C-alpha cells in the first residue's frame, strides 16, 4: 500500500487534474485505488460527478473509522473509489489545531483504508500550515506540480525550506512540470535551470492544453473522453514515471 499526496502550497498549478488522471490510470492497472478529495472546493469530486458530501461532515471525518468509510463512493471506473470533499473541510486547519497530536490526525483517519486499497492518492488544498504537516505525516510520498515560472519556483523553495526546518524528509518529495507552454522561452529556460537546482524532478512534463481544461465539461478523466490526445499521453507518461521512480518495489522497500 502506498499513499501519495498531490500537493502544492501554490494554487492553480494543476493538482486536481493530476490527481484525477493519475488515480484513474492507477486503477486501470488493476490496483485498488482511493482518491481522497481534501479540497473544500471539491473539484475532483465534481469531475467524477459525485456529490460533495461527507456523512456527518468534517466532524465525522475527523472521527475517522466507519463514518468515513461509509462516505466513500464508487466511481464509474473499476477499482477506483472516491472519498468526496465536503465544504465543511474548509476549517480542517483550525479543527486539527485544537486536537491532541494535531499533526498526526490525518494519518489516523486514513489508517483503516490501508488494508482496503493498494494505492491512496490525496488531492490536497493549498496550505502550508498544520494541514500541510498532517499531509506530510500521513503519506509515503508527495508529488508537487510545478509551473516553470519564477513565482512558482519561489513557492517551491519555500516548501523545501519549511520541510527542512520541520524535519520532513525532502527526499520523499517529487515534482513534475505542469501547465508547460512550449512556446514560452522563459518556461524552457527555467526548466533547464531547475534541473541543476532540485533533485526528484520527474522528467515528464504536463503541457498547458485545452483538452485538460475540458475535463470540466466532460466531467471525466482525459484518458476517458479523449484517450488518444496529447494530454492523455502526457498523463500516461507521467504515471509511468511515477510508477518506475516512486512506486517501484525497490524504492518503497527503502522507505
Amino acid at each position, binding site marked *: 500500500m502506498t499513499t501519495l499526496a498531490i500537493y502544492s502550497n501554490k494554487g492553480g498549478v494543476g493538482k486536481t487534474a493530476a490527481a484525477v488522471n493519475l488515480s484513474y490510470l492507477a486503477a486501470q492497472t488493476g490496483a485498488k485505488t482511493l482518491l481522497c478529495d481534501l479540497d473544500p472546493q471539491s473539484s475532483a469530486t465534481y469531475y*467524477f*460527478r*459525485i456529490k460533495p458530501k461527507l456523512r456527518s461532515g468534517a466532524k465525522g471525518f475527523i472521527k475517522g473509522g466507519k463514518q468515513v468509510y461509509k*462516505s466513500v*463512493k464508487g*466511481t*464509474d471506473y473499476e477499482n477506483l473509489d472516491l472519498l468526496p470533499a465536503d465544504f465543511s473541510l474548509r476549517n480542517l486547519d483550525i479543527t486539527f489545531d485544537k486536537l491532541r497530536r494535531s499533526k498526526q490526525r490525518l494519518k489516523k483517519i486514513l489508517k483503516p483504508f490501508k488494508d482496503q486499497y493498494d494505492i491512496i492518492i490525496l488531492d490536497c488544498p493549498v496550505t502550508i500550515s498544520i494541514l500541510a504537516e498532517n499531509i506530510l505525516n500521513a503519506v509515503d510520498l508527495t508529488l508537487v506540480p510545478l509551473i516553470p515560472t519564477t513565482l512558482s519556483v519561489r513557492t517551491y523553495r519555500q516548501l523545501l525550506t519549511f520541510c527542512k526546518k520541520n524535519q520532513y524528509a525532502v527526499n520523499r518529495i517529487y515534482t513534475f512540470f505542469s501547465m508547460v507552454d512550449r512556446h514560452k522561452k522563459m518556461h524552457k529556460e527555467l526548466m533547464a535551470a531547475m534541473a541543476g537546482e532540485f533533485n526528484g524532478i520527474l522528467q515528464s512534463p504536463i503541457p498547458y492544453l485545452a483538452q485538460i481544461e475540458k475535463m470540466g465539461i466532460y*466531467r471525466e478523466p482525459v484518458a476517458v473522453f479523449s484517450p488518444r490526445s496529447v494530454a492523455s499521453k502526457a498523463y500516461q507518461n507521467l504515471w509511468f514515471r511515477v510508477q518506475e521512480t516512486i512506486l517501484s518495489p525497490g524504492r518503497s522497500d527503502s522507505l
Partner: protein
Amino acid sequence: MLKNLKYNLPDGYDEKQFMRKLADQYTLKKEPAIAERFIFFDSFDWRLFNKSLVLYGSGNKLFLRKPAKSEIIHTIEINSLPVFIWDFPDGELKRHLAPIIKMRALLKLAEVYFRSTPYRVLNRDEKTVARLVYEDLRLSGAEDAPTLGSHLWLNPIKGYAKHSRILVQRLAAAGLTIPNKEEMFYKALAFEDKKPGSYSAKVNVQLDPDMRSDEAAKVILRFLLHVIRINETNMEEDLDTEFVHDYRVAIRRTRSALGQIQYVFPAKTTDRFKKDFAFVGKLSNELRDLDVYLLNEADYKAMLPAALRDDIDPLFDHLRKKRSKAFQKVISGLKSKKYEKILEDWEAFLNKPRPDDSAAPNAELPIIDLACKRIYKKYRSVVKAGNLILENAEDEMLHVLRIHCKKLRYLMEFFSSLFSRKKINVLIEQLKKLQDNLGDFNDLCVQEEYLLNITKELPTTHGQLKKTLVAIGSLIGTLGRERQMVKDAFAETFTDFASPENKELFQELFTSKAKKKVS
C-alpha cells in the same frame, strides 16, 4: 459490502423491454459488448473435481475457484496454456495445484463462450449508480450455438445502495428470479456428455456378501478390464505417464485377483489367463521403469553435490532416447495379434453366463466367506514373514514380504465393500505405511543396480563420459545410504503394523470366530 446479484432470464425473455421500462427513472447507457471464451481443465482422473476445484482459462489468464462460488482463489497470467504442473509459472497457484495434479496432464474438458453487454444506470448527474450486465452463454462462438443460459446481473456501486435497492424491487416486479447457486462448469460438461468424477483407477465395486464367489470375482475383474481398456486407448497419445501406470496397476490387480481369489474358476482357465496376463504385464515393464527415472530427474539431481549436477545430463538424455523406443515397443505390442486375442478371450470369458454347476470348488461359496478366509490367511503370512525378518533381515526376505503385502492390499481393496468401511480403511492405512517402507527399500535396490548397469550403455564417444560416471557413482552412494536408513526403519514400521490392536481388528473383521461373538 454490496454483492452482485444474478437473475435468470427465461427462454426468449426480452431484456430490452425491461431496460425500456427503467427509462422512466434512469438513463441507461449501453457499453460495448465483451466476448470471452472460458476453457475448463482437469486431469483425466478428475483430480481437481475431487478436491472441489474448478480451473479455467480466459484470455491470457488462468483462474482457480470453488464450484458455484464466484470468489477466485488464485489468478495468474500465462503466455501459453500449461499442460503439466512444471509448465506453470512459480507462485501460489502452482503451489496449490502441485500436490493435487502431480504428474498428470491437464486436459481441456469443455469450452463456454460468454457474451456480456453492460449497461450503466445513470442518475441525473449522469453518474453511474449501478450496472446491469446482460450475459449470454453458449457452447461455441457461432450465433446458433446451443445456449447454456442467459442472465441479467445487477452490480451495485459503493455508496449508491439506495439505487440498487430500487433496481432490486423493479427486477422482482418484472418477475425475474435469482437462481440457486449453479455451476457453469457442470452445465458445460453435461452438454459435452462428460461426467465429473466418472473415472478413477481405484477399485470401486459393490458386492453382496451372499453372492457366489465366481460371480463376485467376475464383477471385480470386469471393473479392472474396464480400467485397462480406458487407459489402453489413451496410452497411444502419450499425454502423461499415468495412463500407462493406471493400466499396469489394473493388469497387476487382475493377476493378483486370479491368483488370490482361489478356485473360483476352472483351473485350466485360471492357469491360462495367469500366464497371459504375466505376458501382458511384461510388455510395459521397461517403459514404466524409464518413466519413473525421468519423473524423478529433479530429485536425483538434488541428491548430487552442486558441482556434479550438470554432469548427469547425458544419463537422462540417454534415458529419454530409450524411453521413446520403449514407448513405441509398447504401442506395437498393444496392436499385436497375440495381445488382442488375449484381451478378447478374457472379455468373452468375463461376460459368459456362469455355469449352473462349476467344477471349481469355491465357485458357489458365498463371497463373504472366501474374502474373510483369503484376507486373514494373507495377513497371517505377512506377519509370519515379517517376524522372520525381525530376527534376520535379509534383503531377499524383505522382497518376499513386499509381495505378500501387495497381495493382501489388493484383496482388502477388492472386498472392501463387504466390510465396515471405516474399520477396513484403518487397516488399509496401517498396511500402506508398511508398504511404503518396503516399496522404498525395493525401489532403492532396483535403482542402484539399474544405474550400475546403465553405465555400460552410455555412448563412449561422449567427451563428458568420465564426469557422468563420477556423477552416477555419487548418486549410487547417496541411494545406498538412503537404502540403509529405510532398512533401519523397517523394524519399527513392521512392529506397528503387527500390533495387538491391529491383530484384534483383523480378527474382528475377517474371522468367523470373532463374527459369531459379535452376532
